[in-house]
């Protein structure tokens, strides 16, 4: 199995532990990731808000490169994934755009969850577990971009997605049912309306605390960053101590595979998961 890999800016910067854990898990599963050569910005965060042409043009270049290589694209960052998928759809629907960007749609754009959730990989993953995460109570947190916009992502179930649940189930974690799988963390308001972000993130963190989760698990670097970095502010504002690890699903898969780098990845978070994983005897 081989995929074109699109890390985007986040995985090369603030979410290096996602990049690292993603790649090492894939290596263990025998999945080859080949980084798209000379990839450009996907246009998330600003381009698609201000320029309709740029919105398509930026991902178009990478899509065409990937198509030439002939392998489906996997984009672990939820933002990159949605931008690339939206662009691929738009090009195929709009003949003017297609003339400009001769992308034929022969390759698919997949999110990280999409890739791991395929039957073949999921069963491989189950077989590769050496250290099932028994006793680790986790709440799967998909955030918005894993399921929205509906007509771009076309999720199986937009209100109750299950892909991450099944991956976590495969590595033996205890999945705790909770109502905020897809609730907004406030990520896109991170810089403009911090008050709102604290409210929204606080709500999610409170619920995870209420159900006595050991960690919130996500695949989206924006959600991770937002939930992880706001806890100190929340603690300061509310006087209540927030200490909820926000982990990438691939980090936990790595732990279940006995990857030696788990402690290193944990060190990249504001609220480290090291303590809880150690306490549960998982690292």
């Amino acid at each position, binding site marked *: 199995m081989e995929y074109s890999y699109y890390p985007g800016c986040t995985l090369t910067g603030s979410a290096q532990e996602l990049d690292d854990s993603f790649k090492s898990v894939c290596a263990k599963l025998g999945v080859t990731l080949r980084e798209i050569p000379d990839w450009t910005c996907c246009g998330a965060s600003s381009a698609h808000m201000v320029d309709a042409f740029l919105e398509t043009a930026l991902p178009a270049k990478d899509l065409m490169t990937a198509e030439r290589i002939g392998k489906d694209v996997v984009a672990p960052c939820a933002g990159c994934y949605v931008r690339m998928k939206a662009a691929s759809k738009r090009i195929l629907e709009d003949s003017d755009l297609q003339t400009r960007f001769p992308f034929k749609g022969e390759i698919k754009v997949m999110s990280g969850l999409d890739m791991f959730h395929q039957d073949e990989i999921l069963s491989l993953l189950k077989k590769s577990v050496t250290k099932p995460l028994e006793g680790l109570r986790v709440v799967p947190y998909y955030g918005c971009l894993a399921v929205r916009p509906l007509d771009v992502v076309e999720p199986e179930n937009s209100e109750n997605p299950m892909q991450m649940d099944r991956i976590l189930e495969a590595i033996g974690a205890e999945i705790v049912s909770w*109502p905020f799988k897809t609730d907004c963390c406030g990520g896109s308001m991170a810089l403009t309306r911090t008050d709102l972000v604290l409210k929204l993130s606080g709500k999610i963190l409170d619920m995870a605390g209420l159900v006595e989760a050991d960690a919130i698990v996500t695949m989206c670097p924006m959600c991770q960053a937002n939930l992880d970095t706001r806890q100190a502010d929340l603690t300061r504002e509310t006087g209540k101590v927030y200490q909820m690890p926000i982990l990438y699903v691939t980090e936990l898969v790595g732990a279940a595979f006995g990857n030696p780098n788990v402690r290193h990845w944990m060190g990249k978070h504001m609220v480290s998961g090291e303590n809880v994983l150690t306490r549960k005897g998982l690292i």
Partner: protein
Amino acid sequence: MSDKKIGAVMTVGGGIGGVQASLDLAESGFKVYLVEEKPCIGGVMAQLDKTFPTNDCSACIFSPKLQTLAQNPNIEILAYSEIEGIEGEPGNFTVKVRQKARYVDPEKCTSCGTCAEKCPTKVPNEYNFGHDIRKAIYKDYAQGIPSVFTIDTDHCRLWKGKKCGVCAKVCPAGAIDYEQEDTVVDVEVGAVLLAPGYELFDTGNIAEYGHGIAPNVVTNLEMERILSASGPFEGEVKRPSDGRHPEKIAWIQCVASRDRRKGMPHCSSVCCMASIKEAVIAREHDASIEPTIFFMDIRAYGKDFDKYYERAKGDGGVRFIRSMVSRVVEDPITHDLQITYLDENSRLITETFDMVVLAVGIRPSDSAVRTAEILGVKVDENRFCETGTFEPVQSSRPGILVAGVFQAPKDIPQTVIEASAASGAAIRFLAEERNTLTKKKELPEEKDFSGQEPRIGVFVCRCGINIASTVGVPEVVERVTELPGVAYAGENLFTCSQDAQVQIKRVIEENNLNRVIVASCTPRTHLPLFQETAREAGLNKYLVEMANIREHCSWVHMKEKEQATEKAVDLIRMAIARTSRLEQVEDQQLPMIQSGLVIGGGVAGMTSALSLADQGFPVHLLESTDKLGGTALRLNHTAKGEDVPTFVEELKKKVTSNERITVLYGAKIDHVEGFIGNFKTKVTATDGPVEIEHGVAVIATGAHEWKPDVYGYGTDPRIRTHLEMSEAMTAKDPAVMNARTTVFIQCVGSRCEERPWCSKVCCNHTVTDAIALKEADPEAKIFVLYRDIRTFGLNEPYYEKARRMGVIFARYEPEQPPQVEVGDKIAVTVKDLILGGTMTLQADNLVLAAAIVPVEYNKELGKFFKVSINEDGYFLEAHMKLRPVDFATDGVFLAGLAHYPKPLDETIAQAEAAGSHAAQVLARGYVEAPGMVSVVDQFLCRGCGRCVDVCPFNAPELKEIAPGVWKSEINPALCKGCGACGVACPTGAAEIRHFKDDQIGGMIDAAMA
């Protein structure tokens, strides 16, 4: 291919629609094959708890029908079956049906239930939506028909490759057959009638409300089971997560209805009333419950619905909040549910509930769509069967008819109407084959018990828990056994179930019983069933008596269990006293005049007349004006775009050219006498007076549009009613078609104190007109001021279309109605409830959706035919759910707007149904009159004539049998058995058979003893 038609019909679907159609067809002399995919017939109606707006118990009113069906020798039930193919043409189809293996031999199974008791495999019970368990060998519900158990091979241990075979070992009848195979049969029928019903939209696709994830979120059908005495919690309102009694329950309306995104653009029609009913009933079960209903529009558009809604709002204690809830958030620890909504002041409120009920949208099931495909019947984009307004029960394929929710979302009465209409259509088509394939029920000779000591059998019913949870049934049985005359006493779980009928017959024969008492519920619904059963065992049906230990005992004495048991014994002792004095009585057969009278020459009357005439019966059609057509003459086109005037012209032509139909214009009834089979009606018509003899009558007098005295009506020609608007549109009046701004005001004179009903057609009428105006001029501005938009069923997409075209809908509160000021323009001022401000619309035209009001003449007509009018002035049918075209008075039928305001398709369906029921009576050829009539003992009579004075039916007559010796004689054909003569008679000469003095006196003595 032969031209020969076949006198048999296949009905598909064993819910109320299929059952009603099967009964109608069999009664009319056609062989019926009823195909049902589930192991038992009954459909959704059997699962419901109560029915709106009368709060009748659904199973109680339905199960007698199911039993009647089971006992009919001309209905063959092919349950657990599916249709695999069809060949041939209308009149002569061959349908391939696969009957799935049940692995239980239906001939041998006695439904004793031992197999299920011993079966080791527990399975979530899908009949109760998994709120309790059943076994891998099961029957959905106790009264289920056919009364046979079925092995669920998805769960049975044997099919999982494990060792078991327990059921075969314990079955006393040797009915288990693991080797059984599917059987495929070819059934020859003249027509097929589709009534496959509906299913709920899959809630897996609406996870925002948490159904299937949060245990305390249930669908409205689950709520029916939860409320039902035979449901998983035996009628106790509990929440599934912890069994705690919920206090705050929220109902969310329009979950996957009116939602194109979910592929459900239609309105599901029944949910508003179903939820209101559930809320009211839940509070009846447990007064501490606080129900809240979240809704967009309350669509209480049917007969007495709005009154029910208003009652629920007031005394019912139900809170209504007009806000579409976007999600339900579960507290994962307490399993309580949070709902955030917008209140009337546009504030966001978050409230916690113990339980949430989702009014989930309904649509035809996958299997119904598959069956339709196999049969070559077209379905529309939303899976409903394609039909036209003017032929509402005709599918796209000739010879295949449709009824019920498969046609469009609808409630039970409308389903029943369509079932009768569709069977009527099948009968008209196959009329010459009547009675060619049916057989008469073979009954044993009635045994003569005269002179014998009473040997009474008492069957005490547990009625699930309805009786048994209050009355000590085993104790009652024990004490009754001791009483004189009782030869047998025993109990049944449901005495009305099919296996109980078999058992009753066996007990009668084994114990040589000559009297039977069933101590259960009301004779009004169940006596005919037990009479039929006893008759099959050779007993005269008048030797059967019922003691009502449910309505008169267990239901009213729930908190006094001991006294209730005592009372049950007393009631049975009274019944024994009466029963031991009962005598055999013969029913009488009276001659029948095989012709009909239809009153009203509108679409309803004409349709009924044609239905009767096509079945071979002469008809007199009375029209009060000088032309046929009624209100439909003033209509323009339907929502689907069909032209009404053309249809009415064609219908008129069919009627006037039909040689069996005599139309009398300017007709007015002066006098009616007689009864079913023998009416004499005096009529004055344009051509002079006539006396018409007829066997049946159909009342189809229609209704009127109210002349408004509000909103400036009558002061300016630019202010029109709906019908005036339609006429102007038909005439292409430029003042209407070219208007820049048109305002519609809804509920003009409807839903108010004087006229507390919804006129049902106005919302659809307005939407249809608004679309037509927009199509004529897309720039035209159109405003609709409304209270609730009630575009029920498949009309909803037209409402959506109107909005997409730019028609503006603005709601007003009845306390603040729009203000109209006539000037250069018509200024309509209304408070905008969304923006909060007041807006004034400068209209070129104002259209008033004026109420529909009943005809004044109904009162007089009601007296003539001894039929009732309700408090609003509409005719009152025999039963609001199950007999919507019949009257309590036999031989008189009802159709169209005389019953209640309704659109054309419903009018046509009801008229066909009324015609069909009327023809059913005529086709029998005689009138079966009960033997419970008065007789005068000639020896005791002294000829005083008091009986003649008091009888309202002119039954007694004084005859001079010798010079100066007068004696009274009763005409049994006219006697209704009311007993007035018996009371008036000073010598005790006049007495009612079956209600003789000593029979009643004995009861009273027993009660006092």
